[in-house]
């Protein structure tokens, strides 16, 4: 089933971006990867046939990235590993 | 109509691929931004336009045209804002060695 493989590939990409978000030293880079994570989450939801959820996640992705960066403005960018 | 759509699709795809190559291969941020900002915008626009032509004349095509419009508006501005931020925060452009 090609759909299943596509899905598996997308979830794998999510795992990669999620892991790299956790292991980045720069918090801003971490947030950017988190944003990419949310992009792939949207694609995955769509592949699973859930446009409503994908739509919500797309919008929530924007809002949460915005929140993160606005908050990071007042924090230190560096992070331990 | 189909021919037009096909031409648009393939030329759009060509630009997308070229932009991607540029982003991967170019030596520094500004050149990569150049590739992404120009190539990708044009590629996406042509591709979506091709899809709109393929879809025929209805409400969805209107929305596709809106996407084209928005990409044309947002992408260059994003590039501008980004390069400005990069330059102001002290990222030096790449030059050939010895110059």
């Amino acid at each position, binding site marked *: *089933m090609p759909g*299943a493989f596509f*899905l*598996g590939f997308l*979830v*794998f990409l*999510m*795992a990669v971006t*999620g*892991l790299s*978000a*956790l292991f980045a030293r720069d*918090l801003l880079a*971490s947030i950017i990867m*988190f944003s990419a*994570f*949310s992009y792939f*989450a949207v694609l*995955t*939801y769509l592949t*699973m*046939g*859930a*446009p*409503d*959820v994908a739509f*919500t*996640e797309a919008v*929530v992705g924007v*809002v*949460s990235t915005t*929140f*993160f960066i606005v*908050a*990071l403005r*007042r*924090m*230190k960018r560096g*992070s*331990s590993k | 109509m189909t021919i037009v759509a096909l031409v648009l699709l393939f030329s759009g795809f060509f630009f997308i691929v070229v932009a991607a190559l540029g982003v991967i291969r170019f030596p520094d941020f500004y050149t990569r931004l150049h590739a992404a900002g120009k190539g990708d915008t044009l590629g996406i626009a042509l591709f979506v336009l091709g899809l709109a032509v393929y879809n025929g004349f209805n409400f969805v095509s209107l929305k596709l045209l809106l996407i084209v419009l928005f990409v044309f508006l947002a992408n260059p501005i994003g590039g501008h804002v980004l390069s400005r931020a990069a330059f102001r925060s002290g990222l030096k452009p790449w030059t050939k060695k010895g110059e």
Partner: protein
Amino acid sequence: MRELFTEHLIYWLILFLFMLGPYGMIFKKNLVKKLMSMNIMQVAVILFFLALGQKTGGTIPINLPGLIGAEHYINPLPHTLMLTAIVVSLATLGVSLGLLLTVQKRYGTLEEDELLRRMNQ
């Protein structure tokens, strides 16, 4: 064995993503990263629920004229539940970022070890 692989691989990937959450929360010392791993965990739960509703031959649960019958549409119930879950994750994120800002304001750090040291001073 091969069936198990194709049928449950996605569940495994999703559960791996889920366990990334507790892992990050325990082993990452930066509070922002803890927050991120929390969010990743919530996304994994959403994926899990959506995977439950999958159906061969089902399309998006929005009515198409002429296509009638439960077997043609994906189960809409998990989608509904997960809309709620996404909203909850956004809400938690907002609150905890507010908390982090306050912590940063008072203690000037977000690294856990440093924070504990400054708290006990």
